[in-house]
């Protein structure tokens, strides 16, 4: 399975690890360390999937989601929320935006790969 994945997370080392994992599974990987840079990357090169961290400086994950979902060019790109927060109920506001995929850190790599495959396949 292949596709273009955009990683937006402010932890460079974690990004490096996930990049290695995804590349080993045949994905094209691009990344950004903050929301602003991420949004710019999307404009230049539209990804098939966005793996999005929530707690980030400048623009946080929720804001990125909002902007993407209101942008006609970008609203169809599937998003997986990548979060260390396990607080119940925080998912609600993302679901309200139409984002329904969540993976919690620390994650199981098999789980992550399965989810990415499923979400890209759904389109």
């Amino acid at each position, binding site marked *: 399975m292949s596709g273009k994945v955009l990683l937006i997370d402010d932890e460079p080392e*974690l990004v490096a690890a996930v990049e*290695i*994992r995804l590349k*080993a599974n045949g994905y094209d990987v691009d990344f950004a360390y903050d929301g602003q840079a991420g949004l710019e990357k999307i404009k230049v090169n539209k990804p098939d999937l966005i793996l999005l961290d929530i707690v980030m400086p400048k623009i946080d994950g929720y804001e990125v989601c909002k902007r993407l979902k209101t942008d006609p060019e970008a609203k169809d790109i599937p998003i997986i929320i990548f979060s260390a927060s396990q607080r119940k*109920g925080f998912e609600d506001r993302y679901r309200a935006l139409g984002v329904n995929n969540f993976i919690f850190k620390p*994650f199981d*790599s098999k789980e992550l790969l399965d989810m990415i495959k499923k979400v890209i396949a759904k389109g």
Partner: protein
Amino acid sequence: MKKKINPRAKKIVKNKNRMVPVVQVENLLKRAMHDLEKAREISDAGEGASLAGPSGELEAKIKERTLELSVLYEFSNAVAYTLDYHQLIKLVMESLFKIVEHDICVALLCNENIASVTIKPSYAESVKFTEEVKNAIIDSAAMLTGEDIRGKHLSSFLIPSSSAVQPKEDSEFDKIRSSFNVPFIVQAKTVGLINVSSCRESAFSEEDIKLISTIINQASTAIERMRAVITAEKSKMESMVEGMAEGVIMLDEDDEIVVINPRAEDILGFGPKEAATSGMLREKFHTLGLDKAFEECKTAKHLITKEINIANDGAAVVRCDITAVKNSAGEAIGIVAILRDITKEKEVDKMKSEFISTVSHELRTPLTTMREFISIIADEIPGKLSKEQRDYIEIIRGNIDRLSRLINDLLDISKIEAGKIELKRSFITLSNLIKDVVATLKPKAVAKHIELKTSFQAFLPRVYVDADRIVQVFTNLIENAIKFTPQNGKVIVKMINKENEIECSVSDTGAGIAPENLGKVFSRFQQFGRVAGGGAKGTGLGLAITRELVHMHKGRIRVESELGHGTTFIFTLPKDTIESLVKKLIHDRIEEAKKLNAKLSVLTLSIIDFNGVKRQLENQKLKFILLDIERVIRYALRRPTDTVLRDDGEIFVILEECNKDGVLIVKKKLEQAITDYLKREDLAEVIKLQINALTYPDEAQSEEELFVKARTSQRGGNDVRESIIN
């Protein structure tokens, strides 16, 4: 026979400012009775004297005097302990009625802000004079005291006349012809007035006037005493309340501000230099919504707590605890409100939440990076590994996971302690929940050849709990059991339906726990009796968390164990009656509805003449029919958020976010579904159902109201929301 009137009797009437000594009155009475007896003896003894003439007159006079004295005696007794103005006036008027012939009596009592007028007509016909005497007394009082009586907050009371009493025949009830006022004087000041009026000319003799005055004097003394007591109590309270760190506001039954301490004024934004007038305070109450809360608390069963935001210099959050003071009849006679500035507390609370979530995020992030790189190496993506390297990598991975679990548990327990865990309750069938947990943990048991089974009755009542948390409890207990049981052992999960609670237990055939360790089992970071090769190391927090979760559900947990004979953990979950469950559920849903500004609807379906139906059908059959009906209803409902609860022949359906129109649609659907079912099963003649529908907040404003009204089967005939199915 000449009889001297006791000279002491004269003295008593003269001492207008002293309360009639009760003992003296008592003695007078005794003597009067004695004299009367004597007079009778004499006339009985004959000597030809008749009861007419001087001795007859004397007897009549003595009788009258006796009556007057006994009324005075009763009055002074009754008034000795009165602390209630209304009661006092009532006593005064009743006493006057007994000893002075009059057609209508009216009393007025006033203080700086309030004037209260009490009217007692002697006969039903006297009522027509009410307005006249009321106005007259107000004018008289105004003249006498020089105060603007009409400018005060005026309240009137009418003491109904006794319908048994008929006016004397010779009275012409057309207009008031005699009227007499007596003032209530307390400490040289006129605080009120009493007036007796009659349609007869010159109705009141000097004797009458003296009697009235005596009573009024006693009453005035009583008022003086009452005021002294009230003032003493008030200043006691004021000095107590003056220095309090909390703001205190007290209102009386007329909503007048009785007490407001400096702290309360400060909190409300009135500095020490400004004198807050009653008017300014009332306005503040209104702006902050406190006046509404004051009204609410009068009819509330418990105290009301309100958090308000006050912007003085800076935003403050103030917590107001408001409760009504009730008399023995349950009527509100006052309101007490305690104000606390909780701005700091709220900030600390916010910091706690933020700390917990920051820490969790900060700890998990490096863990995630570590885990993923280890995983990448373990999967040999950068290159092949030697056996040794693989082993070491596995050890690292295992420890990272252990750290991860520890962080989760720590976070859980600190959230529980900070009170940050909120149970998200729903109705679940416990047996299904347990079956799911067992299925998840089966592989672990199988790996150790441990038999993992369940033992419970099939039909267990549904419980209202936080499903995820109860899963956590069972997972913890069963995982522990598996860990601490050697190969080929047994783990059994039991569930017993007791009268008021459900008892669950997890037992194993492990090594057991030594008696000296039993008490420490639920403490943190305690681990003992581990069986070698028992799987991943625990965090030592699992049972501590489990216990907290059980307690949060108002259950109990304990452990029973014998060394060498295995261990059993037993916990209970309280069982509510369907009624209290429904009320709890409605309450929670109403809270949610309030937050979302949504509506909530409740449907009750009840089997008409359920007892009759019970007699007709066999027990077992009826049981199944009821279950079927419940199933039919569940099937007909679309949304998972709709809840169905059954109690014998009554079924409650709670529909979230459902307005009046919505609930009528659902009602029709259910009617149809049930009618079809009954026809199919040939039960149409035997079972008839009635459905009521109710919506919050349109038709009911509280869970109590919603519950009660939804159940009432007697509703108006033209109520379209009610229907009968058969």
